[in-house]
């Protein structure tokens, strides 16, 4: 792609190079592969998912690169990214802790587990611990209500949890993080 039929800027090739450099190869391939498909703009959410999977969050630069390369106004890209709870605009820690505050978990005492997590980590929902290992978020039902109350760390679901089990659970992830750090 050297010329863009939709944008009359004469420095597009240069801009494009800059934007392409901001996104990983699989996302670029996805955007390029869909460009000529009918309703290609409908793949915006799918694209944002891929970007977030790669970086862990959607930064302002990422949004702009997606907007430019997909030829969708940045206002709309930002509008979509902020509308959906699943998209995070701030960087997060190595492990994302999602406390389920769905109904089943709520009636089984999820609030106490959440409180314990906040006490142990010293952070609130939406924040990241100082060491950068944990971010804390809440979610509404991860679909394992039978095990309520549950907490999802990364893609792993833990439940039923009592506040008393929280410190040990965090320890296992801390140990894992230390192990992974030691490898690199």
């Amino acid at each position: 792609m050297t010329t863009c039929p939709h944008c009359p800027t004469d420095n597009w090739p240069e801009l494009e190079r800059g934007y392409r450099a901001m996104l990983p190869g699989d996302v670029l391939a996805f955007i390029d592969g869909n460009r000529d498909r009918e309703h290609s703009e409908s793949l915006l959410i799918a694209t944002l998912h891929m970007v977030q999977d790669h970086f862990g969050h959607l930064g302002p630069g990422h949004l702009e690169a997606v907007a430019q390369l997909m030829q969708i106004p940045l206002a709309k890209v930002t509008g979509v990214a902020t509308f959906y709870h699943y998209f995070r605009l701030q960087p997060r820690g190595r492990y994302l802790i999602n406390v389920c505050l769905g109904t089943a978990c709520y009636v089984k005492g999820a609030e106490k587990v959440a409180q314990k997590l906040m006490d142990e980590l010293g952070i609130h929902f939406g924040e990241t611990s100082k060491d950068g290992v944990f971010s804390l978020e809440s979610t509404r039902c991860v679909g394992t209500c039978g095990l309520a109350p549950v907490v999802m760390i990364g893609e792993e679901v833990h439940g039923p949890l009592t506040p008393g089990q929280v410190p040990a659970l965090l320890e296992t992830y801390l140990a894992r993080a230390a192990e992974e750090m030691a490898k690199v």
Partner: protein
Amino acid sequence: MPQPVHDFYQAMADRVGRSLADRDAEHQVVVQVGSATCEHAAGSQAVADELVRHIRASGRKDILLHRTGCTGRCSREPILGVRLPGRLPVKYERVNRDLVHRIFTEHIQGGTPVAQHVLDHEAGPLPERELLFCEGSRCHGSGPGPRERFAAMLAERGVSRESVRIGAASCFGACGLASDHLASAGPATYVLARPEKVLYRVTGEEDLAAILDGHLIGGQVVERLRAQEEPIALAFMERYGDVAFFNRQSRVALRNAGVVDPESLDEYVDMDGFKALADVLERRDPDWVIGELTKARLRGRGGGGYSTAAKWTMARKQADATRFIICNGDEGDPGAFMDRSMLESDPFNIVEGMIIGGFAIGAQRGFFYIRAEYPLAIRRIQQAIETCRAHGLLGRNIMDSGWDFDLEIRLGAGAFVCGEETALIRSIEGERGQPRVRPPYPTDRGLWDHPTVINNVETFANISAILRYSGDWYARLGTEKSGGTKVFALAGKVRHTGLVEVPLGTPLARVVNDIGGGVTGGRELKAIQTGGPAGGFIPASMQHMEVDFEPLQKAGSIMGSGGMIVLSEDDCMVDIAKFYIAFSQDESCGKCTPCREGTTRLLEILERITQGKGELSDLDKLERLARLCQRTSLCGLGRAAPNPVLSSLKHFRGEFLAHIVDRHCPAKKCVALIHYEINPEKCVGCTICARNCPVACIAGTRKEAHVIDQAACVKCGNCFDVCKFAAVDRV
């Protein structure tokens, strides 16, 4: 006349039959492990790894490790099943690595089951054989009559009750089958003999005697009494029929969950998969499909309960020939997980339902809209779509019929409102998921302004079964107004949490008490919440009502998508109503004022009440505001959001009054209205409470009664939870 579709299906079925027969011939022993989000959370992957290690170490080549989806017995997972030739299948509950070792050495190698870890097994030795009597209310000869008679006959002949178990089960679904009507008239009961997996149709005492003497004692199948057609859930019952949690259910949508490997097309085809699609494509008659659905009285399982046949008809008669079909897998109700389970455990069934739907309405493309919080469901559906494409079941010229159709997945991104159909369409289009005014309905103008049908996952899960076993059969399972079964996600304060599928019209109490095992911890049932944030509460006094769309609505709740939360006397209704309003307020998309502002003000008032600052006039305000929000909101979210408030006010007004007038929370849940005290009579001075107090507000020395400083106490309840002598009172 050439029958290309039929030939295609036959060739596929033959290939599958051969390959599975080869596999079974090589493997005498089958060990089954569940693989689904909930099973993984409970540790099933470690169990599977441990098994692989044991199988390898033993050097045995005749053991098959079979991965299935999940059965929906959440509170006992991970579940591990062992099938030895000629024996009843045994399931173990809460299996861990150590138990795998015992099961492997004692049961698989040694032949003796580890009885004390068998799923839902009380005590005593395991039976060797079992006869399950259908006692569904729709079976002609329902009730315990034939079963008791048979048990008496066993005793007369001196057969030991320990080796033969006589059990009762709900409807096998055989009663409505064509062969049942062709067979000799008169009341009949169906009896399943395990492990032989033979279904008998019994009409009288001579038949019972023939089974006893011929089958049980003589060891010969009594061919004369054998049911002519296999009913739908036979494979499921064969494996799980001995467990009360399962045999009181009627599995149609969930028939393959926990039976097939969700990643294996072969196993799905072996369960008659794609037979219905082959039939549809061979007949080439969309009206026949819709006609069967009409007879089935199938109503959408996503919440609204709209007739599926009517919806499909509307899309079909549009002039615009570009049409779409969408599967709504957004499952937004917090506390519901049946759609996840179906997508994960039986993905090919949902895919088949969608292809049939696509054909019936004349669509070219279909979309799965699945919430991003369900990564495993997304993977399984993706894998199923790709497998179907590779086997000529999707894409061009499906099953050699000359018809083209394809499916793709679009992900949700954590917005509850996107479950609403017009918002969902916006989301697939890549926009903010905000609903728009209806009409026009999506069947007129939906995705990219073309006619579009949106159905729930469970609705699609029923399609192939209806076409395979007929609409009349399906209708007979349900009630006058709604055919078939409904899956409920049973959670909250109930002993057996999990997935329960029962015929519509089943009393609620049966679901919660007989199948769910009643309330946990010996507490009293207070209410059953159905329908999630759009639903309401059924008080314990009304627990005998039938579950169906209309009765639930009349009681001020809704069927919803099937979330069922059991609440006990420890739950405060004001608090739970507040919980739901907080949810709706948070999820309101903000487009229309009544919903955006209405839910915010409702929440404020409820917060006031739970903090003990409510006034009597608040109840009036709540009601007026709730009605306003109901009447004037743009979409179903705002219109239904006040339901939990109105329903709790209707059934539990007294609890609101207690909060407002007496400044008292009867369930002792609302933090502002309770405090903790240490009973000096009971306190032994163990100091555990003081050590666990986060604000160090408990004073006292060892072996002396402790005291809480009320001014400093933050009422976290730690002392209450940790005290081993019940010396801390919550008042």
